[in-house]
């Protein structure tokens, strides 16, 4: 946070999803705050296990949608991330350097289970992200940050927004 010394701060998010078929481990890194942090490469995302009703997810390289208004608000789309259940793509709004909204651009919606995830899990994850920020905490114990697609799309949007 702002009172910290200006040393490199690195954040790495690793997602590990075990299935009967095998494991999936994703690693992405977001260098925080300072430029001194040597950007680590990220392990390639093996999305081979994704087989869901992918359909509409060609937009893997969604460009930033320049929603820049005069008040310093930016809206950025994250990557469309393939998950087992289908594509997940999120849009973040950053106002004055703070994350103020996370909305879904694409979510899996091909069956009732997907609908349930879309209607419940994503808003909850979004709330947790926003609460963590508003409470000025570095991390959350007991949270359910367990959706790898959500995290990866969110991370890519935050990276594009440039913190």
């Amino acid at each position: 946070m702002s009172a910290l010394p200006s040393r490199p701060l690195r954040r790495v998010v690793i997602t590990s999803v075990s299935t009967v078929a095998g494991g999936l481990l994703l690693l992405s890194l977001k260098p925080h705050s300072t430029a001194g942090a040597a950007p680590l490469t990220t392990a390639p995302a093996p999305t081979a296990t994704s087989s869901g009703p992918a359909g509409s997810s060609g937009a893997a390289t969604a460009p930033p949608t320049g929603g820049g208004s005069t008040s310093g608000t930016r809206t950025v789309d994250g990557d469309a991330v393939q998950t087992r259940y289908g594509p997940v793509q999120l849009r973040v709004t950053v106002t004055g350097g703070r994350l103020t909204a996370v909305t879904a651009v694409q979510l899996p919606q091909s069956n009732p289970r997907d609908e349930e995830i879309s209607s419940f899990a994503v808003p909850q994850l979004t709330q947790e992200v926003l609460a963590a920020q508003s409470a000025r905490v570095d991390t959350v114990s007991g949270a359910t940050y367990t959706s790898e697609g959500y995290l990866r799309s969110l991370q890519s949007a935050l990276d594009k927004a440039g913190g």
Partner: protein
Amino acid sequence: MGTVFSLDVRGGAPDRIAAAVEGAAAWLRHVDEVFSTYRPGSQISRLAAGGLTLARCSAEVREVHRLCEDARRRTGGWFSAAYAGGFDPTGLVKGWAVERAAEMLRSAGADAVCVNGGGDVQTFGGPWRIGVADPLRPGAVAAVVRAGEGAGGTAHGDGLAVATSGPAERGGHVLDPHTGRPPRDALASLTVVSRTLTEADVAATAAYAMGARARGWLAAEPGTEAFAVTAGGRTWHTAGFGALADPPAGRTPGR
């Protein structure tokens, strides 16, 4: 393990830290391979199937087995790795693995380390602010634990760990090992703070299974502080928790 790991590191020589981050990621991947109950070829699966004896398992499996035994004794049987007649250390492995990963980053020269594995957190140094998710108000934080603030802040020396157990815990429900059912008088969530995550995770899991009895047990546990949200939305905490945390906002203390 089917979970998300987040590693925050401050300070240290960039190249050494970069190597340590890679090493920590490789470690977590390795643990997943060895301990996964979902992979038929993992040592744990082969052990459960009878195709492998404990003596022939790797040193880390034997260490985890020993830690599970210690945990069972420490908790008077409330923590148990015995499941369906076999050995399932899942309840201990994640905390242990996260603690190790954080140690790897610290020993690489980081000034401050914070590793979160599926909501269980191990820190070294700081300062860090660790929110405790409010189980009844999705998105809200029920309390904030402060780590690594030096005098007054951290009563547990350099390392601090925070583990939370609840009915929605990743990897299945916490069951009362005596009945095989969810605990009676179940809390909405229970958070334990101690020096290492292996300890904190075991205590949180065991005490959660105790239901209403958790409070007395935790109060008597050395080096352990705790914070709970009851099903009715009240909160309680052990005597030393207040010195480690910002007060919960918007909740009614006491009970």
